[in-house]
């Protein structure tokens, strides 16, 4: 099985395919929104961002950015290692938020209503065989 370098352009392409294949618009609550996850202290010393855009429940874009990412409705910031542990199912994303390891910016009320959608996304992303 192919493995993908975590948060590389190839990983983003694979993420897009899997999200499209496995999450119907119903499962995604027909959400139209955008989210950017900022990874600090990546293994190569860089900071990176993954930008996700959804239109009516369909994933429309997954892209990797070094430096400035597009504006998004929700911004989640944390260390690369924290995201990697979530991706390897060693830590829950909720626990990371509640302990302050991840920082969420955006409308908390809307975020609550989208929590289940993000959980479903994370489960799909965790299935991508990745190298960290």
């Amino acid at each position, binding site marked *: 099985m192919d493995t993908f370098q975590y948060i590389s352009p190839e990983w983003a392409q694979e993420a897009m395919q899997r999200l499209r294949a496995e999450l119907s618009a119903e499962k995604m609550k027909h959400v139209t929104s955008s989210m950017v996850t900022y990874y600090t202290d990546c293994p190569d010393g860089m900071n990176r961002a993954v930008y996700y855009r959804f239109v009516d429940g369909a994933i429309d874009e997954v892209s990797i950015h070094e430096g400035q990412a597009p504006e998004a409705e929700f911004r989640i*910031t*944390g260390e690369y290692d924290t995201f990697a542990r979530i991706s390897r199912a060693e830590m829950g994303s909720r626990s*990371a*938020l*509640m*302990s*302050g*390891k*991840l*920082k*969420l*910016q955006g*409308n*908390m*009320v*809307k*975020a*609550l209503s989208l929590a289940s959608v993000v959980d479903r996304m994370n489960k799909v992303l965790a299935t991508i065989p990745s190298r960290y």
Partner: protein
Amino acid sequence: MAEIQTHQVDPYFIDFPDRIRRIQKRMHESGIDVYLGSRLRTLSWTLDAFCPWRSFIVIPPEGLPTAFTFVIDASRVGDDSWLDADHVLGYAPMGGQDQISAVSDLLLRHLPGGRGVVGIESGMAPYLPEGNLTHFEYECFQAALPEARLVNAHDIVDALAMIKEPGEIARFREASRIVDVGHQEVWQAIQNKGYCGMTETEVGGLAALAMRKAGSEWEWSFTGGNEIASGYRTGLAGGACTPASRRELRPGEPFMVDIHAMFRLCLGDHSHNYLLGPATDRMRWHAHNFVDLVDLCLKTYRPGMTPSLLADEMLDFCEEREFAEYMVPGFEHGIGMMGDEWRIGMNDGPFPYWTNPDHVYQENELLICAMQYACTEESIGFRYENPILITADGCEPLSKFPLGIEEV
């Protein structure tokens, strides 16, 4: 062709966006870049929504404000408020979403380079839910905004909120009408010895049900909702606070009913007193003293009057009638939209955050005419409270329940 609407059809309409613009004008004049409101009175006055959880409002130099409240209640506050959901946000114990992070992130957007002046609300009050910024919150915000200067600016809202607007006055009138419905219910229930076996808490509940049926949102007072006292509890020294107890009403005792209704954040608060028969001549003497004093007081309020001038006149009357020793020497307290329940006017008196005794009343100010009579040794006392509107040449008591102390 549709009729052009030239006036607001809602008699209770308040122009909240205009309130924000007036705050912003004062901010500009005071050199304040962004305002951080935290007092309950400020939240009610700006949001038109009740905020029972710790909440904040961030008012930028121009444009719409943003409110923050505990996330479990943010949707409801947004639904009640005139602001849209994007301007009523929730905070929660999560990275980036705790109240200090969420609020200071927004404040920083209005402070170029993190520098500038943030107006905050600091002070003290006998009224517990005032909502001034706590010492801990102040330190946290200062740490989050190290280049900004935090200055006390509550007087901006205090000054603007002092003179009531027509829609606000209409809401207060409706709240008082509802309170009168509650009093009518109690009066009917206690007739013909109907009070026998009834407890103070039950009376509070009877009034509450009647007022809720009439449209009251809740018995807003932080002093225990509807305050009911009977017997010796009416005469507790200085006793202007009597949450209802489980005490049963008894013949031959005084009985005080102080009930509260809220209508669209505006507050009804009226006290009425009874003598549960048989009454003695001495009880009637106390009752006559009190009714005459209230009557005189209501005739004395007018623009230009001050709390100290009024107190002097009233206490002279009490002395003349030889009951001054039974009076608490204060005759009013402040009132405004929910959370504004204590000080009258501005914080410019000799004792910080207490009413300035030389505050000069102006037309369209609203206050609670409040008097407490307590003869502890005879276990008798009375209370009067009624929101009054200062008019051009006197005052309008908003509760219309007839003044008197009836023998039941």
